[in-house]
């Protein structure tokens, strides 16, 4: 019990922990606002809320979730960058918000170096998805149909996905009709309604794939997909890039390293603890928790940032 009370006590007497310098002793100076860059009710939103709930239970900190969706996470970034960098404000986005999207919009105030990456929670299970048993349920069928002269309607849910679709088309000699829809759910609705033929989905397809309604005809990440292990990688089809990424928590830039470590550890402790609801959701819906923090995370973000720059360059050529 003592272990739970200690941080609470620490919070209430409001010691300025920065000088003490130990992540275990750190506690936020006030209630934490957690911005959620996703629409309420979706998988990502639930994930963020469950992790917050887990931290509240484990550490006794107060976390108040607040929805701030839109604009591929940049709306959240705009707001978060103005918040105090003392650990009382962080937000959940996807890694591409601070890499591809920030670069594409070009606002210097929103670049990766203006934020502190806290921790990732789950890796994308990106796949190129089509209806199972349909006319496009393998890459060979897609290619054959395209070569026969029928235009292929390719659904994408973000600018990065659209660029990736175009890039894939360039490399494989297919002139896709790229249809930008809203979110992975929009892609899947489009597939079901027959409005589009294939589309990128970053993980939400998992249930439909397992139930045999849809299929991953290719994978967008390095490692094989959990649901369709034999789907070829898009790099094998000709793409120069992966469509990889993480769900992750970020804080304003210049966050005290102690606070950063403490928050990162808290997120890890909750997400990796199989007794928490957050862990159950990550395991069921996101291919399992995938936590990266500290320098390991910084290295990934730098790498992803460089890949995003290369993709933007490749597409604008």
């Amino acid at each position: 019990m003592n272990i739970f009370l200690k941080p609470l006590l620490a919070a209430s007497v409001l010691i300025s922990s920065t000088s003490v310098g130990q992540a275990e002793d750190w506690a936020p100076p006030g209630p934490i606002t957690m911005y959620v860059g996703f629409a309420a009710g979706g998988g990502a939103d639930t994930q963020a809320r469950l992790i917050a709930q887990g931290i509240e239970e484990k550490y006794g900190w107060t976390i108040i979730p607040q929805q701030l969706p839109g604009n591929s996470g940049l709306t959240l970034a705009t707001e978060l960058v103005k918040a105090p960098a003392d650990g009382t404000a962080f937000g959940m986005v996807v890694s591409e918000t601070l890499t591809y999207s920030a670069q594409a919009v070009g606002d210097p105030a929103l670049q990766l170096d203006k934020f502190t990456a806290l921790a990732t929670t789950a890796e994308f299970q990106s796949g190129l998805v089509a209806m199972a048993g349909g006319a496009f349920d393998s890459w060979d069928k897609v290619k054959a149909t395209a070569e026969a002269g029928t235009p292929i309607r390719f659904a994408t849910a973000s600018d990065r996905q659209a660029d990736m679709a175009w890039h894939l088309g360039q490399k494989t000699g297919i002139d896709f009709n790229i249809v930008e829809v809203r979110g992975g759910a929009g892609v899947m609705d489009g597939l079901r309604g027959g409005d589009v033929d294939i589309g990128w989905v970053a993980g939400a397809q998992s249930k439909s794939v397992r139930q045999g309604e849809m299929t991953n005809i290719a994978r967008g990440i390095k490692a094989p997909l959990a649901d369709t292990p034999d789907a070829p990688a898009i790099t094998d089809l000709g793409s120069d890039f992966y469509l990889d990424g993480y769900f992750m928590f970020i804080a304003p830039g210049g966050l005290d390293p102690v606070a950063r470590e403490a928050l990162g550890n808290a997120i890890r402790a909750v997400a990796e603890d199989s007794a928490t609801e957050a862990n159950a959701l990550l395991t069921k819906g996101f291919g399992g928790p995938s936590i990266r923090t500290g320098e390991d995370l910084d290295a990934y973000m730098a790498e992803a940032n460089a890949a995003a720059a290369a993709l933007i360059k490749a597409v604008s050529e």
Partner: protein
Amino acid sequence: MTEMLHYVWLGILSVFQGPAILEIAGVGLPVALVMLVAGLITGIAVGATPGLAGPMAMAISLPLLISAFGFTPDALLPVFGFLIGIMKGATLGGAVPAILFNLPGTPDAMMTTLDGFPMAQRGQPRRALRIAQLSSVAGDTFSDLVLFICAPFLAVVVEAYLDLPEKTALLILSISFVAAVMGRSVGKGLLSVSLGLLVAYIATGNDLSPRLTLGFDVLQSGIPLIAAVLGVLIVGEIFATLERLWLDNHALDVIPVEKRSTQDGLQPGDIRRISPYVGRGAVIGALIGALPGVGSTLAATLSYTMAARRIKRHPQAQPLGTGAPEGIAATEAANSAVSGANLIPVLSLGIPGNAAAVFLILAADSIGGFNPGPGVFSMPDGALNPQLVTVFGIFTLMSLGNVLNWTVGGGVMRAMGGLAKIPATRLLPVVLLVSLTAIYVQETSMFAIWSTLAFGVLGWAMRKLAVPVLPFVIAFILAGPIERSAREAFAASGADPWFLFSSPTSVILLLLALAALMFLGRER
């Protein structure tokens, strides 16, 4: 077909086996059912209070409900249960002050005063209330049956025959129709629509830099849906009513009837007398309800006029306007029959037709996991469509609501008679505070309150200038889908500028839109 029945069964189960609010002797009391009952009573109460109406109660309770139940799919049925309860209760409750005090509790109960109040004055308020209840519930039940049968069918047809260009054309048709039939002139209807579209387009769109923000960061996430809708619909109404009360404190006061006759309550032969009028009223209401934008007031007026004409042909019958049961029956059956049928375009197309439907869409939109539209009714092979289960859960709740209205509705109506005496001068300021606080709690930003007030001013001005407000709200909600489907259609067609005219179906729909604007608006 068996698959469909399976879904129906799952829907019924989802209501009764959903999360329980408390357990009595090991049997759980499903929370959705409790919320339905609570909503029904609330609905009758607000319907019976002049100055409050169903949509207002739905608007205020929505943020509360969402806070209470959260954003999980489990929240859908309890929230819908409460909202549907209000919707059904309010149509019933609106008749109470209309009959007892000659003051319609909701606008569509206007025609109920014509015969209900004289009957009450003659000393038969119970009889009038009872007739109103029976006709209202009968109309509502009929309308729900129409919904249950038509919505899945329509959705399947839409999904099977309409591609992206046709969906765009269908959306254009529905807002043109709304603009044409609501309000006094096509011009004003279109103005309302264009304002709604424009405001909705702020900071939405595909670019990573949000559009039309004038450089303000607060506008980056756009105007909150709830702020625009509640501002124009509710706050605007509060401002306008407060002004009316400011000019005349007693504008909404009531004159109670004290006389009581011994011969109160339902009279023998009443049911046989009103049945044909209830039947016709229900059909008129359901037909009109299925069209977006044409409200229950029109249905009630039409039904009443037809009944009056029919009665005139029988010289020995009691003429309408003198406290005839047929008058109450015709009105109440028709205005209640609108509500179920109104959900046909909501569930199968995602197009709201009246204020109550707007709040149901708003609820679905806020909670997530349920997107009204043709996709709701799809039955994928080998997979379960949870949205379809939700739909049948909603249908189950609606049917249960009807049963409750049949059985206990009358008692609740009589109990709510006193509510009409609450002075609106004191009620409305409290309602304003409650609405603004509820909006704040959902949006957690002062900007939401400022925008709600700004839209309140807009709503007030629109009322002053006789510009209808509902087209604004409907256009605001449909703005996103229209733009998205047009963009998707354009992109999917490989940038064909004539994509809207690429198929006969979409050309026909567009011609209908044009025809609606040219002809429907001319008639008044």
